[in-house]
């Protein structure tokens, strides 16, 4: 087994550098502090939007009840 004392310079430098790298969690904290949250849309938003439009059109174009009564 190789003694730690015999680690060559490259190995020692790699061991020195490893804990000094920016941790992913810290990087993500920094990124989130910079980039405002972008609102995301639900996957069903388009079908829900279409449904609401269809309902609104149907209501707007339906014959009013008093008009139906007058016709009878």
């Amino acid at each position, binding site marked *: 087994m190789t003694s730690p004392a015999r680690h060559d310079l490259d190995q020692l430098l790699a061991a020195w550098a490893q804990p000094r790298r920016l941790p992913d969690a810290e990087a993500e904290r920094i990124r989130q502090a910079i*980039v405002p949250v972008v609102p995301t849309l639900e996957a069903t938003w388009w079908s829900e939007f279409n449904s609401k439009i269809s309902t609104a059109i149907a209501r707007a174009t339906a014959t009013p009840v008093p008009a139906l009564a007058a016709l009878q």
Partner: protein
Amino acid sequence: MTTSRDDATVFTRLFDQHRHAVHAYFLGRVADPELARDLVQETFLRAWRRLPEVGPLPDERQRAWIFTVARNLAIDSYRAGAARQAAEAALRRDAATLETTVAGPHAHAELGERLAQLDAAIRDLPEEQRVILSMATAGGLTSRQIGQALGEPAGTVRYRLSQARKQLAAALDLEDGA
């Protein structure tokens, strides 16, 4: 600035591409990890604000732009005295920190001791060598990439890296294989 998902995607790519290098640069300049992180955040905040200009650049020119900002921030930080004070504070607490975070169990005590020697030797390097060494080891950059970032020829970077390695090898009584 109106944020879109495209902006966030472009920024995230830029951030992931350069964050390790920028962090390693500041570690080499200011020694103190907390100050280095603050300076990383400020550097990328400026990149975010100029994203329409920086985002479309190719990697090499993006790196040059980002490191121009980073160099200016490091200079401002030194002028404000923050970096100097932080570096001195980091030096003062260095021995104790290394003892607890690196040495650990008895089996690793010898490696921990060697790393403490290496860290002290790195701190004794001239700043220009320390920054390059940090970018090469902690940042994982090639000499060419470091040269692009610092505005130096790759040959100069290689020479300084070689000088740094010789000084470290001498300090640790090692053979430098470089």
